[in-house]
């Protein structure tokens, strides 16, 4: 049974909590060689949404004084604002519910948005979500008016609990953050897609090359969120453009309804009318 929704057009926007966006590529803003390349990469990606974070502003006492260096966070924010993109603040690095909730509250005030990419990290080597803490934090934040984008696994039961907690978007990982491994569990991701046919689903994390993103879109995912694959490419701007095209190609292929794979060959050239020359 094919539970995937193949209707629509390439131009259809994706909708997150009632907000429609044209691009199905969500781009992270970390680890770029320079702010200028970050800006160019965002433009080349055509992303409408970029992820941002909150960190301690270091050296403020000197930096804020006349003649001091500009505050790093302020110049970064100016760059993002000038690009005119929407921001999705994250709670990266938070390991407890309290940390994640407090960080989300601070992000809401700072960025003036109810959106939050909720991360509650449970394991250092894989940066795997602590799904128990994630569900609890999602419930607290949803009740407080947040629109939560949870970074989760492809586990169906966790997904159901996140939806019950108020999440109207789910963001399962493809593979561990920054690993570039692609879609580690295609079966699990396919199951999740089939289980929630109408819910916006975003593959978040682990994507390494554009073909991974295209594969996620061919599965019926609504969008892909990635960072390292672009930021750490030899040419981030070119790679951003490559991902944009791959995501469009995957989306177009989904709508086009691909053929079924089969085990045995089937001649594509007609057999009828073939000359007998032997």
């Amino acid at each position: 049974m094919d539970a995937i929704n193949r209707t629509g057009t390439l131009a259809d926007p994706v909708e997150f909590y009632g907000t429609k966006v044209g691009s199905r590529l969500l781009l992270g803003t970390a680890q770029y060689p320079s702010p200028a390349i970050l800006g160019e990469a965002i433009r080349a990606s055509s992303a409408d949404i970029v992820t941002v974070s909150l960190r301690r502003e270091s050296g403020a006492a000197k930096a804020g004084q006349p003649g001091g260096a500009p505050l790093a966070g302020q110049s970064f924010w100016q760059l993002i604002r000038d690009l005119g993109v929407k921001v999705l603040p994250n709670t990266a690095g938070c390991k407890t519910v309290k940390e994640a909730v407090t960080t989300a509250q601070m992000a809401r005030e700072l960025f003036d948005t109810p959106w939050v990419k909720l991360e509650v990290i449970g394991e250092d080597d894989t940066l795997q979500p602590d799904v128990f803490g994630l569900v609890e934090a999602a419930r607290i934040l949803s009740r407080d008016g947040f629109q939560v984008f949870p970074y989760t696994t492809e586990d169906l039961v966790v997904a159901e609990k996140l939806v019950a907690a108020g999440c109207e978007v789910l963001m399962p990982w493809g593979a561990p953050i920054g690993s570039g491994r692609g879609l580690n569990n295609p079966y699990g991701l396919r199951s999740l897609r089939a289980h929630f046919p109408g819910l916006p689903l975003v593959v978040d994390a682990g994507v390494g090359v554009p073909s991974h993103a295209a594969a996620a879109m061919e599965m019926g995912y609504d969008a892909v969120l990635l960072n390292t694959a672009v930021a750490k490419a030899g040419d981030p701007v070119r790679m951003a453009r490559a991902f944009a095209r791959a995501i469009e190609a995957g989306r177009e292929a989904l709508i086009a309804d691909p053929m079924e794979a089969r085990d045995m060959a089937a001649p594509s050239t007609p057999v009828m009318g073939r000359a007998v020359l032997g």
Partner: protein
Amino acid sequence: MKIIVNGETADTRAGTLADLLGELGFGEAMVATALNGTMVRKAKRGDTPIADGDRVEILAPMQGG
């Protein structure tokens, strides 16, 4: 008095969180604040006293994935 600002010990004469931000040179910078693990909204910083040993977090927009 001694307080902890962003994980580092600091001496301050600030009476409130708003005073502390001014003392540290943040001026009108776009930052979010927490006192002893609890968020303090911008509008409340002037009414939030600082005491010896307090832990203050001053966070700004940063790159993120």
